[in-house]
């Protein structure tokens, strides 16, 4: 379980009014799929980075299973919005990176890396260079690269925002499948309301400047979700109007 206790983040520490996040309290349960939605600039990426340990709160603390988060860890995988594959490594060696730095035997590394590459459907591309992949494929490899470490939590920062709608929907389907197979906790940041309702158990809506939690929605729809049901559309309308007030 991840607990955010009264998180405030400001970039100019002394000055008030420069808070980008204010008094965030949030508990994320084990195995939960949580989406954080908010307008751009609301600090949602910063929030995710702090959970990863790539950034630190000005006030408050973030606790994972009774331990305060003090830095990045292989227990918290991170999928970036930007393409982040190592361009000098082929696809398989990208996926293998986490196990390689852990110091496992070569055989075990490649066996596991291949398993996760298969999970994201890219087995036949193991020798390809990242340059040769489409945007969607790159993000799939990035997901496999994070999962290979078998992290407790997967943090995802708008990983599908650069993709076209069809590809995005396909990857959302796959992500739901992987999540249910692997039993991971996923914290997924997006500005796309549709995406958040499709994916999450719970959607947390952040306000704009300073980012505060304005409302939390429990999404009790059956997966794989149908975007055209009245329940889905009503939720979408409600969250969208909430965000529009913010802008």
């Amino acid at each position, binding site marked *: 379980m991840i607990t955010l206790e009264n998180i405030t983040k400001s970039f100019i520490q002394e000055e008030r009014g420069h808070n980008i996040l204010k008094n965030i309290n949030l508990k994320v349960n084990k195995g939960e799929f949580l989406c954080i939605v908010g307008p751009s600039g609301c600090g949602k990426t910063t929030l995710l980075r702090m959970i990863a340990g790539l950034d630190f709160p000005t006030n408050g603390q973030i606790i994972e299973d009774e331990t305060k988060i003090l830095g990045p*860890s*292989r227990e918290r995988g*991170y999928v970036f919005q930007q393409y982040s594959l190592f361009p000098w490594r082929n696809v398989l060696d990208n996926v293998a990176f986490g196990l390689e730095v852990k110091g496992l035997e070569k055989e075990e590394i490649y066996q596991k890396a291949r398993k996760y590459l298969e999970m994201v459907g890219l087995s036949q591309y193991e020798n390809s260079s990242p340059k040769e992949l489409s945007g969607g494929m790159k993000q799939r490899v990035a997901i496999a690269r994070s999962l290979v470490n078998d992290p407790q939590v997967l943090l995802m920062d708008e990983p599908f925002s650069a993709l076209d709608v069809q590809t995005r929907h396909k990857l959302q389907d796959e992500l739901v499948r992987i999540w249910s197979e692997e039993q991971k906790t996923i914290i997924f940041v997006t500005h796309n309301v549709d995406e958040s309702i499709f994916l999450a158990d719970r959607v947390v809506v952040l306000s704009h400047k300073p980012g505060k939690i304005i409302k939390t929605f429990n999404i009790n729809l059956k997966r794989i979700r149908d975007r055209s049901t009245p329940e889905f559309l009503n939720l979408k309308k409600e969250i969208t109007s909430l965000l529009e007030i913010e802008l």
Partner: protein
Amino acid sequence: MRKIFISMILPVSIIIIWTILTTFTGLIPSYFLPSPFEVLQSFETLLMNGQLVQDTSLTLMRVVIGLTVSALVGIPLGILMGWSNTVKDFSSLMVGIFRPIPPIAWIPFAILWFGVGLESAIFIIFVGSVFPILINTMDGVKRVDKVLLESAYTLGASNSQVLRKVAVPASLPSIVTGLKVGVGVGLMCTVAAEMIGSNNGLGYLIFTSTSMLDTGSAIVGMLTIGVIGLGADYLFSRIEKDVSW
């Protein structure tokens, strides 16, 4: 094909004008500027008596050794300076003062310390080529995409693993660029060093031929340097392409 054709226009025109001026008008005496035929004759002589091959290989050897020393010092130091602000702050003043000093200014000291010969030349090449290599490497490490570094950290890599497995390979393009610039500077330094602190090599060949009014041989030496530089540039541009991520 078109590219080759266009690139040949200028050199061919120059050779034609050069031939006309030196051979047919008689306006320019050969000790002032030898004709292309005289240059070819000198080329043949130098090739036959083995001097050209000997001087070229000596110069090349000096460049290669000097550049290797520069790379061995400049690349690791550049990586550390790009990685750690402490190392950078520690060495920036020193680098800042020594970098603008023209390598040729070191020649008197080089001769004083190492005498006339190989060590002197290597020292001069080192002084000239170490800075471009160092600065390019440092910039490369500094400019590594933050997302790649952070990805590695979230995948469980330690500081030294991030440095070795991400920062260094990611800055390889800049390192190669540094080496490419370094070769050019190194070549210039070698020839300058050979003119003053040596008794062989292409620089020495140019210097002694000119002082004996054998301008044909001097031009052969100059063109040989040009060809070496062109070759080195081509080689490193190829490598640059291979590592351009």
